[in-house]
Protein backbone atom coordinates (compact mmCIF):
# COMPACT_ATOMS: atom_id res chain seq x y z
CA UNK A 1 0.00 0.00 0.00
CA UNK A 2 1.69 3.27 -1.06
CA UNK A 3 2.04 6.10 1.43
CA UNK A 4 0.17 8.46 -0.92
CA UNK A 5 -2.74 6.08 -0.81
CA UNK A 6 -2.79 5.71 2.95
CA UNK A 7 -2.62 9.51 3.16
CA UNK A 8 -5.63 9.69 0.89
CA UNK A 9 -7.69 7.20 2.80
CA UNK A 10 -6.78 8.28 6.30
CA UNK A 11 -8.54 6.85 9.30
CA UNK A 12 -10.94 9.81 9.43
CA UNK A 13 -12.09 9.27 5.85
CA UNK A 14 -12.50 5.53 6.25
CA UNK A 15 -14.43 6.07 9.45
CA UNK A 16 -16.83 8.62 7.93
CA UNK A 17 -17.27 6.37 4.90
CA UNK A 18 -18.16 3.36 7.04
CA UNK A 19 -20.26 5.27 9.56
CA UNK A 20 -21.55 8.41 7.89
CA UNK A 21 -22.78 11.13 10.29
CA UNK A 22 -26.03 13.01 9.71
CA UNK A 23 -27.09 10.81 6.86
CA UNK A 24 -30.68 10.85 5.64
CA UNK A 25 -33.29 13.54 5.23
CA UNK A 26 -34.14 15.72 8.22
CA UNK A 27 -37.89 16.40 8.23
CA UNK A 28 -37.47 19.96 9.48
CA UNK A 29 -35.27 21.06 6.58
CA UNK A 30 -36.19 24.39 5.00
CA UNK A 31 -33.43 24.32 2.38
CA UNK A 32 -32.48 21.49 0.05
CA UNK A 33 -29.85 21.32 -2.67
CA UNK A 34 -28.57 18.57 -4.84
CA UNK A 35 -25.07 18.09 -6.22
CA UNK A 36 -23.88 15.73 -8.87
CA UNK A 37 -20.72 14.83 -10.68
CA UNK A 38 -21.80 13.68 -14.15
CA UNK A 39 -18.36 12.35 -14.96
CA UNK A 40 -18.51 9.67 -12.29
CA UNK A 41 -22.18 9.62 -11.28
CA UNK A 42 -21.60 10.68 -7.67
CA UNK A 43 -24.62 12.32 -6.09
CA UNK A 44 -25.16 14.25 -2.91
CA UNK A 45 -28.23 15.98 -1.50
CA UNK A 46 -27.93 18.36 1.42
CA UNK A 47 -30.83 19.16 3.75
CA UNK A 48 -30.56 22.28 5.82
CA UNK A 49 -32.53 23.75 8.72
CA UNK A 50 -31.60 27.41 8.63
CA UNK A 51 -32.78 29.51 11.58
CA UNK A 52 -32.00 33.13 10.88
CA UNK A 53 -28.37 33.04 9.89
CA UNK A 54 -27.56 29.88 11.81
CA UNK A 55 -27.38 26.31 10.52
CA UNK A 56 -29.58 24.71 13.15
CA UNK A 57 -29.49 21.27 11.59
CA UNK A 58 -28.06 19.61 8.51
CA UNK A 59 -27.99 16.20 6.86
CA UNK A 60 -26.93 14.68 3.60
CA UNK A 61 -27.80 11.73 1.43
CA UNK A 62 -26.29 10.32 -1.73
CA UNK A 63 -24.04 7.79 -3.30
CA UNK A 64 -20.48 7.88 -4.41
CA UNK A 65 -16.90 7.01 -3.60
CA UNK A 66 -15.44 6.97 -0.10
CA UNK A 67 -13.92 10.42 -0.58
CA UNK A 68 -17.19 12.09 -1.58
CA UNK A 69 -19.30 10.41 1.07
CA UNK A 70 -16.80 10.92 3.89
CA UNK A 71 -16.32 14.55 2.90
CA UNK A 72 -20.07 15.24 2.92
CA UNK A 73 -20.39 13.48 6.27
CA UNK A 74 -17.54 15.45 7.83
CA UNK A 75 -18.88 18.67 6.32
CA UNK A 76 -22.20 18.23 8.16
CA UNK A 77 -20.40 17.83 11.50
CA UNK A 78 -18.27 20.90 10.78
CA UNK A 79 -20.99 23.37 9.85
CA UNK A 80 -23.76 22.35 12.21
CA UNK A 81 -24.43 25.21 14.64
CA UNK A 82 -22.31 27.67 12.66
CA UNK A 83 -23.46 30.89 11.03
CA UNK A 84 -23.53 31.06 7.23
CA UNK A 85 -20.42 33.26 7.22
CA UNK A 86 -18.54 30.89 9.51
CA UNK A 87 -19.53 27.93 7.32
CA UNK A 88 -18.31 29.68 4.19
CA UNK A 89 -14.99 30.36 5.88
CA UNK A 90 -14.78 26.65 6.73
CA UNK A 91 -15.31 25.82 3.07
CA UNK A 92 -12.53 28.20 2.02
CA UNK A 93 -10.27 26.50 4.53
CA UNK A 94 -11.25 23.03 3.27
CA UNK A 95 -10.80 24.07 -0.36
CA UNK A 96 -7.33 25.35 0.44
CA UNK A 97 -6.41 22.02 2.07
CA UNK A 98 -7.56 19.79 -0.81
CA UNK A 99 -6.13 21.93 -3.59
CA UNK A 100 -2.75 22.70 -2.02
CA UNK A 101 -2.20 19.72 0.27
CA UNK A 102 -1.19 22.13 3.05
CA UNK A 103 -2.22 20.70 6.39
CA UNK A 104 -3.64 23.22 8.85
CA UNK A 105 -1.59 24.08 11.91
CA UNK A 106 -4.36 23.27 14.36
CA UNK A 107 -5.38 19.66 14.83
CA UNK A 108 -8.54 19.01 12.85
CA UNK A 109 -10.35 16.19 11.13
CA UNK A 110 -10.44 18.11 7.84
CA UNK A 111 -6.65 17.76 7.71
CA UNK A 112 -7.32 14.17 6.62
CA UNK A 113 -8.31 15.56 3.25
CA UNK A 114 -4.88 17.01 2.53
CA UNK A 115 -4.01 13.67 0.89
CA UNK A 116 -6.58 14.35 -1.83
CA UNK A 117 -4.20 16.92 -3.26
CA UNK A 118 -1.95 14.15 -4.63
CA UNK A 119 -4.91 12.81 -6.64
CA UNK A 120 -6.18 15.73 -8.75
CA UNK A 121 -8.91 13.59 -10.32
CA UNK A 122 -10.44 13.15 -6.86
CA UNK A 123 -10.63 16.80 -5.74
CA UNK A 124 -14.12 17.13 -7.21
CA UNK A 125 -15.19 14.13 -5.13
CA UNK A 126 -14.06 15.88 -1.96
CA UNK A 127 -15.84 19.15 -2.74
CA UNK A 128 -19.16 17.77 -4.07
CA UNK A 129 -20.99 17.82 -0.72
CA UNK A 130 -19.64 21.28 0.05
CA UNK A 131 -20.93 22.65 -3.25
CA UNK A 132 -24.38 21.22 -2.59
CA UNK A 133 -24.24 22.77 0.90
CA UNK A 134 -23.24 26.21 -0.46
CA UNK A 135 -26.11 26.06 -2.94
CA UNK A 136 -28.54 25.18 -0.16
CA UNK A 137 -27.21 28.13 1.81
CA UNK A 138 -27.77 30.44 -1.18
CA UNK A 139 -31.19 28.86 -1.70
CA UNK A 140 -30.11 28.24 -5.29
CA UNK A 141 -32.56 25.81 -6.87
CA UNK A 142 -30.08 24.79 -9.60
CA UNK A 143 -28.26 21.55 -8.83
CA UNK A 144 -24.59 22.02 -8.01
CA UNK A 145 -22.67 20.19 -10.68
CA UNK A 146 -18.95 19.70 -10.84
CA UNK A 147 -19.18 20.68 -14.50
CA UNK A 148 -19.73 24.36 -13.77
CA UNK A 149 -18.01 24.89 -10.46
CA UNK A 150 -14.30 25.40 -9.99
CA UNK A 151 -13.17 22.49 -7.77
Amino acid sequence: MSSDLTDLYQHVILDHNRRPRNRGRIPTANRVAHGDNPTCGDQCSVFLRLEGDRIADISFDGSGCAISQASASLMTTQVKGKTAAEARALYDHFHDIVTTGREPEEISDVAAFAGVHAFPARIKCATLGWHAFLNALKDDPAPATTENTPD
Partner: protein
Amino acid sequence: MNSWKNIRDDFPILNQEANGHPLVYLDNAATTQKPRAVIDALSRFYERDNANVHRGLHTLSMRATAGYEGARARVAAFVNAAAPEEIVFTRGTTESINLVAASWGGANLKPGDVILLTEMEHHSNLVPWQLVAKRTGATLRFVPVNGDEGLLDLPSLDRLLTPEVKVFAFTHVSNTLGTINPAAALCARARNAGVVTVVDAAQSIGHMPVDVRAMDCDFLAFSGHKMAGVTGIGALYGRRALLDAMPPWQGGGGMIAHVDFLESRWKPAPERFEAGTPNFGDAVALGAACDYLDGLGRAEIQRHGAALGRRAYEVLSGIPGIRLLGPRGERAALVSFSFADVHAHDVVTFADQDGIALRGGHHCNQPLMKKLGLTGTTRASFFVYNTEKEIEVLAASLRRTVKFFRG
Protein backbone atom coordinates in the same frame (compact mmCIF):
# COMPACT_ATOMS: atom_id res chain seq x y z
CA MET B 1 1.19 -14.01 -39.75
CA ASN B 2 2.33 -11.78 -36.90
CA SER B 3 3.78 -13.57 -33.95
CA TRP B 4 1.83 -14.06 -30.72
CA LYS B 5 4.98 -15.14 -28.95
CA ASN B 6 6.52 -11.71 -28.37
CA ILE B 7 3.31 -9.79 -28.87
CA ARG B 8 3.92 -7.39 -25.99
CA ASP B 9 7.04 -6.16 -27.78
CA ASP B 10 4.81 -4.93 -30.62
CA PHE B 11 3.27 -2.35 -28.26
CA PRO B 12 5.93 0.11 -27.07
CA ILE B 13 3.68 1.71 -24.45
CA LEU B 14 3.41 -1.52 -22.45
CA ASN B 15 7.08 -1.39 -21.56
CA GLN B 16 6.79 0.99 -18.61
CA GLU B 17 5.94 1.17 -14.95
CA ALA B 18 2.99 2.94 -13.39
CA ASN B 19 3.38 3.99 -9.75
CA GLY B 20 6.41 1.75 -9.41
CA HIS B 21 4.77 -1.40 -10.79
CA PRO B 22 4.82 -2.92 -14.27
CA LEU B 23 1.92 -1.41 -16.20
CA VAL B 24 -1.09 -3.75 -16.37
CA TYR B 25 -3.33 -2.11 -18.94
CA LEU B 26 -6.89 -3.39 -18.54
CA ASP B 27 -8.87 -0.48 -19.99
CA ASN B 28 -9.00 -1.76 -23.55
CA ALA B 29 -12.75 -1.38 -23.95
CA ALA B 30 -12.14 2.37 -23.58
CA THR B 31 -9.23 2.37 -26.02
CA THR B 32 -6.65 -0.19 -27.05
CA GLN B 33 -2.93 0.47 -27.28
CA LYS B 34 -1.29 0.81 -30.71
CA PRO B 35 1.29 -1.53 -32.19
CA ARG B 36 4.52 -0.17 -33.63
CA ALA B 37 3.24 -1.04 -37.13
CA VAL B 38 0.35 1.42 -36.77
CA ILE B 39 2.45 4.18 -35.22
CA ASP B 40 5.00 3.72 -38.04
CA ALA B 41 2.31 3.83 -40.73
CA LEU B 42 1.08 7.13 -39.33
CA SER B 43 4.58 8.64 -39.17
CA ARG B 44 5.43 7.32 -42.63
CA PHE B 45 2.36 8.96 -44.11
CA TYR B 46 3.24 12.36 -42.65
CA GLU B 47 6.93 12.02 -43.46
CA ARG B 48 6.44 10.95 -47.07
CA ASP B 49 2.92 11.16 -48.52
CA ASN B 50 0.99 13.96 -46.86
CA ALA B 51 -1.11 16.21 -49.12
CA ASN B 52 -4.82 16.90 -49.42
CA VAL B 53 -6.73 14.13 -51.17
CA HIS B 54 -8.99 14.00 -54.24
CA ARG B 55 -8.48 17.56 -55.45
CA GLY B 56 -4.77 17.71 -56.19
CA LEU B 57 -3.11 16.78 -59.43
CA HIS B 58 0.40 16.69 -58.04
CA THR B 59 2.39 13.65 -57.03
CA LEU B 60 1.89 13.84 -53.28
CA SER B 61 -1.83 14.44 -53.59
CA MET B 62 -2.16 11.43 -55.85
CA ARG B 63 -0.16 9.36 -53.41
CA ALA B 64 -2.24 10.55 -50.45
CA THR B 65 -5.44 9.82 -52.37
CA ALA B 66 -4.22 6.33 -53.19
CA GLY B 67 -3.40 5.84 -49.49
CA TYR B 68 -6.81 7.07 -48.36
CA GLU B 69 -8.81 5.08 -50.90
CA GLY B 70 -6.55 2.09 -50.28
CA ALA B 71 -7.45 2.33 -46.60
CA ARG B 72 -11.14 2.40 -47.54
CA ALA B 73 -10.72 -0.79 -49.57
CA ARG B 74 -8.75 -2.34 -46.71
CA VAL B 75 -11.47 -1.53 -44.16
CA ALA B 76 -14.13 -2.82 -46.56
CA ALA B 77 -12.25 -6.11 -46.81
CA PHE B 78 -11.81 -6.19 -43.03
CA VAL B 79 -15.59 -6.31 -42.52
CA ASN B 80 -16.22 -8.16 -45.81
CA ALA B 81 -18.29 -5.34 -47.36
CA ALA B 82 -19.31 -5.90 -50.98
CA ALA B 83 -17.49 -2.77 -52.18
CA PRO B 84 -15.25 0.03 -50.82
CA GLU B 85 -18.10 2.47 -51.57
CA GLU B 86 -20.00 0.93 -48.67
CA ILE B 87 -17.46 2.36 -46.20
CA VAL B 88 -17.89 5.96 -45.03
CA PHE B 89 -15.03 7.26 -42.92
CA THR B 90 -16.13 9.04 -39.75
CA ARG B 91 -14.58 10.13 -36.47
CA GLY B 92 -15.73 6.89 -34.86
CA THR B 93 -18.71 4.86 -33.73
CA THR B 94 -20.54 7.83 -32.24
CA GLU B 95 -20.34 9.87 -35.42
CA SER B 96 -21.28 6.84 -37.53
CA ILE B 97 -24.47 6.30 -35.54
CA ASN B 98 -25.26 10.00 -35.57
CA LEU B 99 -24.89 9.92 -39.36
CA VAL B 100 -27.40 7.08 -39.73
CA ALA B 101 -29.82 8.59 -37.23
CA ALA B 102 -29.68 12.08 -38.75
CA SER B 103 -29.58 11.14 -42.45
CA TRP B 104 -31.47 7.85 -42.75
CA GLY B 105 -33.64 8.57 -39.70
CA GLY B 106 -34.38 12.14 -40.71
CA ALA B 107 -35.50 11.04 -44.18
CA ASN B 108 -37.42 7.89 -43.22
CA LEU B 109 -38.97 8.34 -39.76
CA LYS B 110 -42.33 9.99 -39.13
CA PRO B 111 -44.77 10.37 -36.22
CA GLY B 112 -46.01 6.97 -35.05
CA ASP B 113 -42.87 5.14 -36.15
CA VAL B 114 -40.86 3.22 -33.58
CA ILE B 115 -37.10 3.01 -33.13
CA LEU B 116 -36.22 -0.26 -31.41
CA LEU B 117 -33.12 -0.29 -29.20
CA THR B 118 -31.99 -2.48 -26.31
CA GLU B 119 -31.54 -1.65 -22.64
CA MET B 120 -27.80 -2.34 -22.90
CA GLU B 121 -26.96 0.38 -25.42
CA HIS B 122 -24.05 2.73 -24.88
CA HIS B 123 -25.19 6.36 -24.78
CA SER B 124 -23.79 6.69 -28.30
CA ASN B 125 -26.44 4.28 -29.60
CA LEU B 126 -29.20 5.88 -27.55
CA VAL B 127 -28.84 9.67 -27.55
CA PRO B 128 -28.61 10.07 -31.38
CA TRP B 129 -31.92 8.18 -31.61
CA GLN B 130 -33.47 10.33 -28.89
CA LEU B 131 -32.49 13.38 -30.95
CA VAL B 132 -33.98 12.09 -34.20
CA ALA B 133 -37.09 10.85 -32.35
CA LYS B 134 -37.65 14.37 -31.06
CA ARG B 135 -37.16 15.78 -34.54
CA THR B 136 -39.41 13.32 -36.40
CA GLY B 137 -42.08 12.38 -33.83
CA ALA B 138 -40.97 8.75 -33.73
CA THR B 139 -40.79 6.98 -30.37
CA LEU B 140 -38.26 4.67 -28.72
CA ARG B 141 -38.81 1.11 -27.55
CA PHE B 142 -36.36 -1.22 -25.80
CA VAL B 143 -35.57 -4.93 -25.80
CA PRO B 144 -35.19 -5.75 -22.07
CA VAL B 145 -32.04 -7.09 -20.42
CA ASN B 146 -32.68 -10.02 -18.06
CA GLY B 147 -30.86 -8.62 -15.00
CA ASP B 148 -27.27 -9.22 -13.89
CA GLU B 149 -26.78 -12.11 -16.35
CA GLY B 150 -26.98 -9.44 -19.02
CA LEU B 151 -28.74 -11.31 -21.80
CA LEU B 152 -31.32 -9.78 -24.11
CA ASP B 153 -34.85 -11.08 -23.64
CA LEU B 154 -34.98 -12.61 -27.11
CA PRO B 155 -38.43 -14.23 -26.80
CA SER B 156 -39.88 -10.71 -26.44
CA LEU B 157 -38.39 -9.63 -29.76
CA ASP B 158 -41.21 -10.91 -31.95
CA ARG B 159 -43.73 -9.09 -29.76
CA LEU B 160 -41.65 -5.89 -29.94
CA LEU B 161 -41.12 -6.02 -33.72
CA THR B 162 -44.53 -4.57 -34.58
CA PRO B 163 -45.25 -2.94 -37.96
CA GLU B 164 -44.52 0.51 -36.47
CA VAL B 165 -40.86 -0.44 -35.95
CA LYS B 166 -38.72 1.00 -38.75
CA VAL B 167 -35.22 0.51 -37.39
CA PHE B 168 -33.56 -1.79 -34.86
CA ALA B 169 -30.23 -0.53 -33.49
CA PHE B 170 -28.31 -2.75 -31.08
CA THR B 171 -24.83 -3.36 -29.81
CA HIS B 172 -22.90 -6.42 -30.96
CA VAL B 173 -20.98 -6.63 -27.66
CA SER B 174 -21.96 -4.83 -24.46
CA ASN B 175 -19.19 -2.62 -23.08
CA THR B 176 -20.62 -2.99 -19.56
CA LEU B 177 -21.81 -6.60 -19.41
CA GLY B 178 -19.50 -8.41 -21.78
CA THR B 179 -22.54 -9.94 -23.47
CA ILE B 180 -22.08 -11.03 -27.10
CA ASN B 181 -25.41 -10.57 -28.84
CA PRO B 182 -26.36 -12.96 -31.65
CA ALA B 183 -26.11 -10.23 -34.27
CA ALA B 184 -26.87 -12.37 -37.34
CA ALA B 185 -29.99 -13.84 -35.72
CA LEU B 186 -31.19 -10.42 -34.58
CA CYS B 187 -30.67 -8.99 -38.06
CA ALA B 188 -32.53 -11.93 -39.64
CA ARG B 189 -35.54 -11.44 -37.39
CA ALA B 190 -35.57 -7.70 -38.07
CA ARG B 191 -35.23 -8.30 -41.80
CA ASN B 192 -38.24 -10.66 -41.74
CA ALA B 193 -40.20 -7.80 -40.21
CA GLY B 194 -38.95 -5.34 -42.86
CA VAL B 195 -36.89 -3.43 -40.28
CA VAL B 196 -33.57 -1.71 -41.03
CA THR B 197 -30.72 -2.83 -38.74
CA VAL B 198 -27.88 -0.78 -37.24
CA VAL B 199 -25.15 -2.68 -35.39
CA ASP B 200 -22.84 -0.93 -32.93
CA ALA B 201 -19.63 -2.91 -33.39
CA ALA B 202 -17.40 -0.66 -31.23
CA GLN B 203 -16.65 -3.49 -28.81
CA SER B 204 -16.51 -6.36 -31.28
CA ILE B 205 -14.58 -4.98 -34.24
CA GLY B 206 -11.11 -5.52 -32.75
CA HIS B 207 -11.96 -8.72 -30.93
CA MET B 208 -13.59 -11.17 -33.33
CA PRO B 209 -14.32 -11.72 -37.00
CA VAL B 210 -16.95 -9.18 -38.09
CA ASP B 211 -18.51 -9.97 -41.45
CA VAL B 212 -21.30 -7.62 -42.56
CA ARG B 213 -22.51 -10.00 -45.24
CA ALA B 214 -22.67 -12.99 -42.91
CA MET B 215 -24.39 -10.78 -40.33
CA ASP B 216 -26.61 -9.33 -43.07
CA CYS B 217 -26.94 -5.98 -41.28
CA ASP B 218 -27.87 -2.75 -43.05
CA PHE B 219 -25.44 -0.52 -41.12
CA LEU B 220 -22.46 -1.26 -38.91
CA ALA B 221 -20.58 1.38 -36.90
CA PHE B 222 -17.12 1.15 -35.38
CA SER B 223 -14.08 3.08 -34.13
CA GLY B 224 -10.45 2.67 -35.13
CA HIS B 225 -9.01 3.36 -31.68
CA LYS B 226 -10.70 0.31 -30.15
CA MET B 227 -9.04 -1.98 -32.72
CA ALA B 228 -5.37 -0.97 -32.42
CA GLY B 229 -5.88 2.06 -34.67
CA VAL B 230 -5.50 5.69 -33.65
CA THR B 231 -8.19 8.03 -32.30
CA GLY B 232 -10.23 10.27 -34.55
CA ILE B 233 -11.04 7.74 -37.26
CA GLY B 234 -13.77 5.16 -37.59
CA ALA B 235 -16.23 3.99 -40.16
CA LEU B 236 -19.80 3.40 -41.05
CA TYR B 237 -20.59 0.41 -43.21
CA GLY B 238 -23.85 0.92 -45.09
CA ARG B 239 -25.62 -1.27 -47.60
CA ARG B 240 -25.02 0.52 -50.87
CA ALA B 241 -28.65 0.91 -51.93
CA LEU B 242 -29.47 2.51 -48.58
CA LEU B 243 -26.46 4.87 -48.61
CA ASP B 244 -27.22 5.98 -52.17
CA ALA B 245 -30.79 6.90 -51.20
CA MET B 246 -29.78 8.92 -48.13
CA PRO B 247 -29.47 12.73 -48.08
CA PRO B 248 -26.23 14.38 -46.93
CA TRP B 249 -26.01 15.18 -43.25
CA GLN B 250 -23.25 17.76 -43.41
CA GLY B 251 -22.43 20.09 -46.29
CA GLY B 252 -19.12 21.36 -47.56
CA GLY B 253 -16.27 20.58 -49.88
CA GLY B 254 -15.63 17.06 -51.09
CA MET B 255 -19.27 15.95 -51.04
CA ILE B 256 -20.67 17.98 -53.92
CA ALA B 257 -21.02 17.19 -57.62
CA HIS B 258 -22.06 20.72 -58.57
CA VAL B 259 -22.66 23.90 -56.58
CA ASP B 260 -24.64 26.97 -57.53
CA PHE B 261 -25.66 29.93 -55.39
CA LEU B 262 -29.07 28.53 -54.60
CA GLU B 263 -28.71 24.80 -55.07
CA SER B 264 -26.19 22.01 -55.20
CA ARG B 265 -26.01 18.38 -56.25
CA TRP B 266 -24.30 15.69 -54.23
CA LYS B 267 -21.70 13.12 -55.06
CA PRO B 268 -22.70 9.50 -54.58
CA ALA B 269 -21.82 7.63 -51.41
CA PRO B 270 -19.40 7.50 -49.69
CA GLU B 271 -18.13 11.00 -50.59
CA ARG B 272 -21.63 12.42 -50.05
CA PHE B 273 -21.14 11.80 -46.33
CA GLU B 274 -17.56 13.07 -46.06
CA ALA B 275 -17.84 16.85 -46.23
CA GLY B 276 -14.62 18.74 -45.67
CA THR B 277 -11.03 17.50 -45.73
CA PRO B 278 -11.23 13.92 -44.51
CA ASN B 279 -8.97 12.38 -41.90
CA PHE B 280 -6.76 10.56 -44.41
CA GLY B 281 -3.67 10.26 -42.18
CA ASP B 282 -5.55 8.36 -39.50
CA ALA B 283 -7.40 6.35 -42.16
CA VAL B 284 -4.07 5.09 -43.51
CA ALA B 285 -3.11 4.08 -39.95
CA LEU B 286 -6.47 2.29 -39.63
CA GLY B 287 -5.60 0.25 -42.70
CA ALA B 288 -2.36 -0.73 -40.94
CA ALA B 289 -4.37 -1.75 -37.86
CA CYS B 290 -6.51 -4.02 -40.07
CA ASP B 291 -3.31 -5.62 -41.40
CA TYR B 292 -1.97 -6.10 -37.89
CA LEU B 293 -5.12 -7.79 -36.55
CA ASP B 294 -5.55 -9.98 -39.62
CA GLY B 295 -1.89 -10.93 -39.20
CA LEU B 296 -2.65 -12.24 -35.72
CA GLY B 297 -5.76 -13.99 -37.01
CA ARG B 298 -9.16 -12.73 -35.92
CA ALA B 299 -10.47 -16.13 -34.86
CA GLU B 300 -7.34 -16.51 -32.74
CA ILE B 301 -7.88 -13.04 -31.24
CA GLN B 302 -11.42 -14.06 -30.34
CA ARG B 303 -10.23 -17.28 -28.68
CA HIS B 304 -7.60 -15.37 -26.69
CA GLY B 305 -10.10 -12.72 -25.52
CA ALA B 306 -12.84 -15.20 -24.67
CA ALA B 307 -10.38 -17.27 -22.61
CA LEU B 308 -9.27 -14.18 -20.66
CA GLY B 309 -12.88 -13.07 -20.13
CA ARG B 310 -13.89 -16.47 -18.78
CA ARG B 311 -10.75 -16.76 -16.66
CA ALA B 312 -11.26 -13.29 -15.14
CA TYR B 313 -14.87 -14.14 -14.30
CA GLU B 314 -13.74 -17.35 -12.57
CA VAL B 315 -10.83 -15.84 -10.64
CA LEU B 316 -12.69 -12.72 -9.51
CA SER B 317 -15.76 -14.68 -8.45
CA GLY B 318 -13.65 -15.95 -5.52
CA ILE B 319 -13.36 -12.44 -4.02
CA PRO B 320 -15.71 -12.05 -1.04
CA GLY B 321 -18.68 -9.78 -1.69
CA ILE B 322 -18.07 -9.32 -5.42
CA ARG B 323 -21.06 -8.94 -7.73
CA LEU B 324 -20.16 -9.92 -11.27
CA LEU B 325 -22.21 -8.72 -14.20
CA GLY B 326 -22.86 -10.36 -17.53
CA PRO B 327 -23.10 -13.93 -18.71
CA ARG B 328 -21.37 -16.71 -16.83
CA GLY B 329 -20.55 -18.72 -19.93
CA GLU B 330 -19.59 -17.31 -23.31
CA ARG B 331 -18.51 -13.71 -22.84
CA ALA B 332 -16.45 -10.99 -24.44
CA ALA B 333 -12.94 -10.01 -23.36
CA LEU B 334 -14.05 -8.02 -20.34
CA VAL B 335 -15.37 -8.41 -16.84
CA SER B 336 -17.47 -5.89 -14.93
CA PHE B 337 -18.14 -6.03 -11.19
CA SER B 338 -19.15 -4.13 -8.09
CA PHE B 339 -18.94 -4.31 -4.32
CA ALA B 340 -21.71 -3.17 -2.00
CA ASP B 341 -19.19 -1.61 0.38
CA VAL B 342 -16.39 -0.33 -1.86
CA HIS B 343 -17.15 2.24 -4.54
CA ALA B 344 -15.84 1.70 -8.08
CA HIS B 345 -13.73 4.86 -8.04
CA ASP B 346 -11.99 3.83 -4.86
CA VAL B 347 -11.28 0.45 -6.44
CA VAL B 348 -9.82 2.15 -9.52
CA THR B 349 -7.63 4.49 -7.45
CA PHE B 350 -6.27 1.55 -5.44
CA ALA B 351 -5.62 -0.56 -8.55
CA ASP B 352 -3.82 2.37 -10.17
CA GLN B 353 -1.40 2.46 -7.26
CA ASP B 354 -0.57 -1.16 -8.17
CA GLY B 355 0.06 -0.17 -11.79
CA ILE B 356 -3.29 -1.51 -13.00
CA ALA B 357 -5.44 0.59 -15.35
CA LEU B 358 -9.15 -0.10 -14.82
CA ARG B 359 -12.29 1.87 -15.46
CA GLY B 360 -14.95 2.66 -12.90
CA GLY B 361 -18.30 4.34 -13.34
CA HIS B 362 -21.43 4.04 -15.40
CA HIS B 363 -19.54 3.25 -18.65
CA CYS B 364 -21.93 5.51 -20.62
CA ASN B 365 -24.71 3.11 -19.66
CA GLN B 366 -26.67 5.11 -17.09
CA PRO B 367 -30.16 3.70 -17.80
CA LEU B 368 -28.86 0.11 -17.53
CA MET B 369 -27.06 0.91 -14.27
CA LYS B 370 -30.28 2.34 -12.87
CA LYS B 371 -32.21 -0.76 -13.93
CA LEU B 372 -29.66 -3.02 -12.22
CA GLY B 373 -29.73 -0.85 -9.09
CA LEU B 374 -26.09 0.21 -9.49
CA THR B 375 -24.44 3.62 -9.61
CA GLY B 376 -21.44 2.15 -11.39
CA THR B 377 -19.17 -0.81 -11.80
CA THR B 378 -15.48 -1.45 -12.15
CA ARG B 379 -14.43 -2.92 -15.47
CA ALA B 380 -11.33 -4.82 -16.55
CA SER B 381 -11.15 -5.26 -20.32
CA PHE B 382 -8.61 -7.21 -22.30
CA PHE B 383 -6.88 -7.15 -25.65
CA VAL B 384 -4.39 -9.27 -27.56
CA TYR B 385 -1.44 -8.48 -25.27
CA ASN B 386 -3.06 -9.26 -21.93
CA THR B 387 -2.18 -12.41 -20.01
CA GLU B 388 -3.61 -14.73 -17.38
CA LYS B 389 -0.80 -13.56 -15.10
CA GLU B 390 -2.25 -10.02 -15.25
CA ILE B 391 -5.60 -11.38 -14.10
CA GLU B 392 -3.83 -12.82 -11.05
CA VAL B 393 -2.20 -9.44 -10.39
CA LEU B 394 -5.64 -7.81 -10.63
CA ALA B 395 -7.25 -10.32 -8.28
CA ALA B 396 -4.51 -9.87 -5.67
CA SER B 397 -4.90 -6.09 -5.84
CA LEU B 398 -8.69 -6.29 -5.49
CA ARG B 399 -8.36 -8.54 -2.46
CA ARG B 400 -6.06 -6.01 -0.77
CA THR B 401 -8.46 -3.19 -1.58
CA VAL B 402 -11.59 -4.78 -0.14
CA LYS B 403 -9.61 -5.83 2.94
CA PHE B 404 -8.45 -2.24 3.45
CA PHE B 405 -11.96 -0.84 3.27
CA ARG B 406 -13.50 -3.54 5.40
CA GLY B 407 -10.78 -3.19 8.02
